[in-house]
């Protein structure tokens, strides 16, 4: 499903953020990526989401060499990935429903399908009554749920979440992980980056720990 081989990442002439990172994730698994701030978690997730290119190494997604793939193939791979960004990233002049529908809009899905899928998702996440609001009108926890809805609206094969526990509300964090586990049950591979190692250890899923850009201790559970 996901294979990193000796992946390194460096921005410009700066220090290496990731160094010789190698691992493989099986389909239908949930992994936490842990590490302190600056350990390289976001860089790792961005490379996995094809939002950045590694400086060195090989990346295989769904058995396709993502680095050798054409731009069109990389775009198609991105459509199989759902990403919950740390800063959520919305189109602020569009409604919540329109933001959640964005991936389907990119796919060219017909309007009725978009409307039905988005309505069902917002209902599931308890945001049905907020669908016409704009993102800035929501609380941090609500924004995160909207970001999750947008990430799963296509039914992705790979779901990535960057610091979903960072909003400081334990109940919301637990609800968020609960939603991720439901995606796991439908066969989605899930990767969650968090600096809260204790929180990650509460769920018994395998953990990739980054220490100064290096994967330390391999995969632990």
């Amino acid at each position, binding site marked *: 499903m996901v294979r990193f081989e000796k992946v390194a990442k460096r921005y410009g002439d700066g220090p290496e953020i990731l160094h010789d990172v190698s691992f493989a994730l099986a389909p239908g698994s949930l992994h936490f990526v842990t590490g302190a701030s600056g350990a390289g978690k976001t860089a790792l997730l961005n490379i996995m989401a094809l939002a950045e290119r590694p400086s060195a190494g090989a990346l295989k997604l769904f058995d396709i060499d993502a680095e050798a793939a054409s731009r069109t193939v990389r775009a198609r791979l991105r459509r199989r990935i759902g990403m919950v960004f740390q800063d959520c990233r919305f189109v602020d002049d569009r409604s919540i429903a329109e933001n959640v529908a964005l991936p389907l809009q*990119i796919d060219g899905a017909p309007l009725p399908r978009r409307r039905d899928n988005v309505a069902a998702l917002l209902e599931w996440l308890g945001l049905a009554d907020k669908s016409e609001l704009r993102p800035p009108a929501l609380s941090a926890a609500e924004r995160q749920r909207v970001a999750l809805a947008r990430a799963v609206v296509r039914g992705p094969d790979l779901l990535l979440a960057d610091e979903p526990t960072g909003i400081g509300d334990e109940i919301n964090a637990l609800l968020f992980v609960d939603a991720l586990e439901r995606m796991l049950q439908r066969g989605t591979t899930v990767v969650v980056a968090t600096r809260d190692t204790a929180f990650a250890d509460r769920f018994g899923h395998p953990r990739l720990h980054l220490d100064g850009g290096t994967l330390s201790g391999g995969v632990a559970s």
Partner: protein
Amino acid sequence: MGWLWPRSLPIPRNAGRWHLAAIVAVMAYLAALCGVEVIALNDARAGWNRTLDGTLTLQLPPDTSPARLEVVMALLRRTPGVTAAQPLQPAETARLLEPWLGKSVPVDIMPLPRLVDVRIDPGAAPDLAGLQQRLHEVAPEAQLQDHRNWLARLLGLTSRLRIVAVGIVVATIIVAAMTAAAAAAGGFARDADRIMLLHALGAEELDIGRALVIPAAGLGLLGGAIGAVAAAVTVRALAGSMQSLGVSSVAPALGDYRILALLALVVLAGCIVVAAAAATVTWRHLLRLP
């Protein structure tokens, strides 16, 4: 046509789009007027070539007697290379002066020179120095005016004017392209977060590019159309003014197929230049995305 239209990506329209359309309109206006000027110059050159190549004008003092005029005419007719010689009647001379003097000036009481229209064989032109010499012997104040030298200078001037007009057209294209490129780069910088989000969500570069370039091309088309219409109004007004002065032949008519083709070309060029510049800048930015 499905390949032409992008999936409707939520990329806002450029707030400064009317500036781009306005600049393209001004550039299209200038280019269209320069094009009209080139057509008018070409027409004038052809007309001058047709009427002046192979002609001389002999100017005699106003008090030249009919007998002396006859001597001069006989001399001209005998000269090898002269195919015809015809003295202009005073009424005809007065008509030639009317555009400068107006109708109210009594030209019949003015001391107008006697003019003789001399046709020569362009392939076997007479010895003009010798002819002038012989004319001096029978009419010392006779002046032989060779239009070919004047025509050559006039044609040289029109060639230079044509080069200037083409230079202005090239400059307008460069300015329009640079404006479109700057607008595209500014739009990309302003909407960078949104474009990166769409890219991260799986939008293809081609779809993003189309969503940015097609509206820019529309603005180029609009600007080109406004400039072409303004140029058409100007040409019509100029033609009207010239007609009232009796020099309508200098300005080509608005209904002339070449003018219509030129205006259509200006509209199309506005669209193509803006689209090409916007596409170049947009694609360069899109290729930087991972």
